[in-house]
């Protein structure tokens, strides 16, 4: 196990153009599962490939276990990597694939068999050892790739979107397995993904990247609830955070915290609440936090019923943002249905409002906001 440190790392592919990675500083913790999250072209894969030694940085330093590894080959870095395509050797059996790193690093032959069996056992693929990669399903291939990566007990694990080739259902179970796997081996892991759900589910911390720069580093809850800037605020969450812009300030609130007024009316007289909403729909007020609420009337334009929730798309006709689309996510345990082109009483708790500087997009402290 080892800590990975990145210092002022930059990668420029073509001189004179914007770098793929620009002056990144990062440090993992011992045994941590760190997720690099960003849209395509954000530099996350380039960053991972530089850590692996497949790409040479233009400037900056990479340290693994306290040693600068810039000039070391991938084999000398003590890392293992799982590629998006898994990159299994198609002409070798699963056993030979898993044994390849041992062979390549000249581990004595008599250790191959027990090590291969240990790695295969850890991933439950003992029965597949004599098959060829083409005879395996996507999920099985992914496990073989993981087994090949752990067999020589690397100091750092690098995973490049290992779940993106799996279908949606398999992805969820593979994600759980990956999480459990990490709990067991506790090796420092750097995981690249563009899927925010994967990032939130797996990461001890998430590094949000955009245009080759770190936008925010934090636990899943920190990046979601306290986004550092408007990019992070809109990149995480689906649908993304509602952003309303005035001259110098942008205010944002999450669609799932923008709710029918009755649901977040801690002080509303109980009979008023029961007139509009059935009691079973009510969320206990203290679950939503105390404090003021901002009443906002939502003109629903259309709605999507997604089973567990309803997503309502509309406008705020009684504010100065009457042309700005906003959306709300209402749990489907609220039985009320919403008719298009009708205005409903909604509200957002005041402490859910996030403020950003209109020029820089950076987060700023709360301030009075002119709704009208």
């Amino acid at each position, binding site marked *: 196990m080892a800590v990975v440190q990145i210092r002022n790392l930059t990668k420029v592919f073509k001189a004179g153009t914007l770098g793929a990675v620009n002056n990144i500083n990062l440090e993992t913790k011992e045994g941590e599962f760190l997720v690099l999250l960003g849209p395509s072209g954000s530099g996350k894969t380039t960053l991972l490939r530089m850590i692996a030694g*497949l790409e040479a940085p233009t400037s900056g330093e990479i340290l693994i276990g306290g040693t600068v590894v810039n000039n070391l080959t991938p*084999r000398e870095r003590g890392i293992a990597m799982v*590629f998006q395509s898994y990159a299994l050797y198609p002409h070798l059996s699963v056993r030979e694939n898993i044994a390849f790193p041992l062979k390549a690093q000249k581990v004595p032959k008599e250790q191959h068999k027990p090590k291969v069996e240990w790695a295969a056992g850890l991933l439950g693929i003992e029965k597949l050892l004599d098959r060829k990669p083409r005879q395996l399903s996507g999920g099985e291939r992914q496990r073989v790739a993981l087994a090949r990566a752990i067999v020589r007990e690397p100091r750092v694990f690098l995973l490049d979107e290992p779940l993106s080739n799996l279908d949606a259902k398999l992805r969820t179970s593979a994600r759980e397995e990956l999480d459990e796997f990490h709990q067991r081996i506790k090796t420092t892991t750097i995981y690249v993904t563009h899927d925010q759900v994967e990032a939130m589910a797996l990461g001890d911390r998430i590094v949000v990247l955009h245009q080759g720069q770190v936008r925010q580093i934090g636990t899943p809850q920190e990046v979601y609830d306290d986004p550092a800037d408007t990019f992070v605020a809109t990149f995480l969450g689906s649908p993304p955070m509602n952003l309303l812009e005035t001259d110098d300030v942008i205010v944002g609130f999450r669609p799932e915290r923008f709710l029918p007024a009755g649901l977040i009316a801690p002080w509303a007289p109980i009979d008023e609440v029961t007139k509009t909403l059935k009691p079973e729909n009510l969320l206990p007020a203290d679950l939503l936090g105390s404090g003021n609420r901002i009443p906002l009337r939502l003109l629903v334009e259309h709605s999507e019923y997604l089973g567990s929730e309803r997503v309502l798309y509309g406008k705020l006709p009684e504010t100065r943002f009457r042309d700005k689309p906003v959306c709300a996510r209402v749990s489907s345990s609220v039985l009320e249905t919403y008719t298009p082109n009708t205005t409903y009483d909604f509200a957002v708790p005041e402490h859910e409002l996030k403020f950003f500087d209109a020029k820089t997009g950076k987060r700023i402290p709360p301030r009075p906001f002119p709704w009208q």
Partner: protein
Amino acid sequence: MAVDDRKVGVFMFLPAVAYIGLLIGAPLLLAVLYAFSDARIGTMGFHFVGLENFRSILQSPSFRAALRNSVVFTISAQIIVIVASSILSIALEPAFHGRWFVRLLILLPWVAPISLGAIGWKWILDSIYSVITWVLVWAHIFKPYGAPMWLGEPTLAMASVVLVHSWRLIPFSTVIMLAGRTSIPKEIPEAAAIDGAGFWRTEFLINIPMMMPIISVAVLFGTIFTFTDMTVVYILTAGGPFDSTQVLPSLAFATGIQGSDLAAGAAISLFLVPVLILIAYFMLRAAHRAEVA
């Protein structure tokens, strides 16, 4: 009215059938007929003699020498071609400045007419005007008049013929190998590098095994081109000295056309067909197996 697609298909296909039938099928058929007859240039008669021609060529020492030479010529040229084109494909795969120009240069021997290239080599290897000899004498490696006769000594002549023929085949093989190498997903050698494999291990355990189907195709084509070709031999040595570079196609030409014994010439050239069919069968099977595996 709609025209019957099948009929149109057959009609459009006819020129190709006619071309193959007239230019390849008919001569082949004629060669088979000759091989079992006593046909000679200038005689009109045709007598079926069974396997007599084959029996007699098998007893001829020059045929046996030519058969042995053909095997040596083909196998050594193939080894040189595969090794050289593997190295070239490794060198030419990564992008570098002027790569297209280097690729073009390497392709030239294949594009240029073989007779022209071979005549060039004939001068390069000439007993009096050889530029190689001149350089070696100039460098004091050999004394004037003491330099080797590249085409005049049996072993050197065979080596020269093999090298010139390899020179001609290398571009073709390199192009095939480059295609094979490009078809390996980039992550595979990268994964090997991360797994700790160095250059040789990556080449011999990963890249070359993965290219096996395409290497077999290159070897198959190369073998057939070499086994059936006589241009280089004919121009450089005409089979000499003392038949030491005579291969089956050049012997067939010498016997059948220059020596007027059509029947024996046909038998010599047909002698190769079953061998080539067997080679093709095994190579294609190997390619297929490597592809499936």
